[in-house]
């Protein structure tokens, strides 16, 4: 059963003066999904988040969230969405707790003292609750920003560049929180970022944006099937080979004991390994170029060509 879409954009365009930020953009997001909105800086990711939340209006096309236009029904919609903006949007002179209390009042949250304690706990900020937000590291600010965005228990959470400026460890922690939020509470998540590597594991589905246009979308698996016409398998082995191929598989020797084979389908990998194992040892084997970044460049290469 396909879940019904919670967000639907159809043929949406938006220009700022002479810049066309979004062009004929259509996509949907279903309930419970984590969707990665990916693309380089200036691709239009932030604009998409703003359009869906109705803080800016599209020039053409329709935007729907929860089955309504965000412009017409904006306040009832806004109380069901949470947004982490790129700047995190916190009051620096206020403590973590004061920031959350302020937004709780803005969003009309009733039981907010307990809600705040819970969120501070969950995002690892409990011991810093009385520190001013301006003294926080970028990672702490982003965490507080997400806690703020969750204060009113939204159904959909928008995260704009949540890991930009974070060190790898802080990124991993943050993405862990996001994953849990989705798995445990079923929060639908739209995550805009230009850092593909970090969200490859997290997102269920990806939308590739390029100059305001959707150039590809799908799960990692779908994108692999579509874009990886051949696979490179890196094998660490004591196999002795001469020449540019081994039993029909093209081959490159990058350094002694490390071989890179090219296979056409994934199903050829076991066959290749069996052959090698019949005459030598294999210490490790991995498929190269499966990461999102490689896929992205393939997608973009295709789009241009």
């Amino acid at each position, binding site marked *: 059963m396909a879940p019904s879409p919670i967000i639907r954009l159809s043929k949406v365009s938006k220009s700022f003066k002479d810049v066309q930020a979004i062009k004929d953009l259509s996509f949907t997001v279903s309930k419970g999904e984590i969707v990665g909105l990916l693309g380089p800086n200036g691709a239009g990711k932030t604009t998409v988040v703003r359009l869906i*939340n109705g803080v800016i209006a599209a020039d053409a096309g329709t935007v729907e969230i929860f089955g309504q236009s965000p412009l017409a029904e*904006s306040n009832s919609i*806004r109380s069901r969405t949470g947004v982490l903006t790129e700047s995190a*949007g916190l*009051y620096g002179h206020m403590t973590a707790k004061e920031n959350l209390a302020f937004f709780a009042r803005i969003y009309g949250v009733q039981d907010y003292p307990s809600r705040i304690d819970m969120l501070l706990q969950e995002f690892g900020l409990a011991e810093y609750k009385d520190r001013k937000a301006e003294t926080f590291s970028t990672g702490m600010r982003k965490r507080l920003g997400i806690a703020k965005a969750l204060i009113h228990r939204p159904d959909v959470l928008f995260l704009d560049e949540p890991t930009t400026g974070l060190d790898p460890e802080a990124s991993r922690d943050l993405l862990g929180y996001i994953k849990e939020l989705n798995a445990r509470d079923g929060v639908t998540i739209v995550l805009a970022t230009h850092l593909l590597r970090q969200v490859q594991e997290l997102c269920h589905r990806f939308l590739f944006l390029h100059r305001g246009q959707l150039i590809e979308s799908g799960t990692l698996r779908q994108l692999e099937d579509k874009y990886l016409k051949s696979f490179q398998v890196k094998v660490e082995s004591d196999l002795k080979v001469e020449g540019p191929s081994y039993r029909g598989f093209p081959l490159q020797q990058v350094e002694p004991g490390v071989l890179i084979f090219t296979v056409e389908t994934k199903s050829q990998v076991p066959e290749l390994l069996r052959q090698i194992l019949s005459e030598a040892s294999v210490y490790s084997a991995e498929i190269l170029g499966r990461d999102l970044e490689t896929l992205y460049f393939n997608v973009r290469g295709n789009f241009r060509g």
Partner: protein
Amino acid sequence: MDRRAMWAIAIKDIKAIRSSVQVWLPMILVPIVMCALIPGGMIYGVRRFGIEGMGNMGNMDSLAKLIDSLPPGSLRDTITSFDSPEKQVLYFVLNHLFVSFFLIIPLMLSSVITANSFAVEKERGTLETLLFSPVEIRTLFAGKVLSAFIPGMAVTFLCGLVYGIVVNVLAYPLFEELIFPTLNWAVLLLWTIPAVILFAIFINVIISAKVKGFQEAYQLSGLLVLPVLALVLGQALGALVLDTQWLLWGGAMVLALAMGMLGFISRHFDRNRLFESQVS
């Protein structure tokens, strides 16, 4: 209107004044200087040195001449009823010239508070966050207006209190009666100044919501002081007497203008306009 959200914004912004030195410093300094030091120094000087002694310092001499040329009316009658030039000059300065000074203080303070609170929200990206929230634009504006109106009125009353004490204590030995407050002051503090504060706040809301940088906002709102300076000048030259009637009518006019601006604000600024003009 969501009152809880409105007060949350107002209280947050009032608290934020503490962390902005360009706002709280004038809030403290201006009342001390304008409402205590200057009038106190003046009374002290006149009592100590007399009008002649002050002549080359504060141009008190020409003030005495000015009083002679005042238009007929209750101010002139009151002043001429005093038996010494010292009393006449002091009464003229303290209960006439200072009236327009009192207009400048809340005008400037509420302008700075409003411009600053918008500027800080813009700079920190918190305005963007607020616009993403369900808070209505009029609730947001109402919170901002309160956050400038309350401190503006508080400083005004504080100024009035300090001024009243300084003037009465220091001038009593000379006048042997309390010369503050007069009906004029009551009308000024309770009617004209609140109207002027609202007017200044609304103008600043419009300016802040239109321009991007706060330098521009400060500069534009600085122009507001010009008409009041004209009043000060008019008063100082004796061409204008801000009597009770004048203050009542002036307050009503300013209030009407302010309401007009409020109408403009509520018609003109919606979420999308505000977002597109304020968030980059």
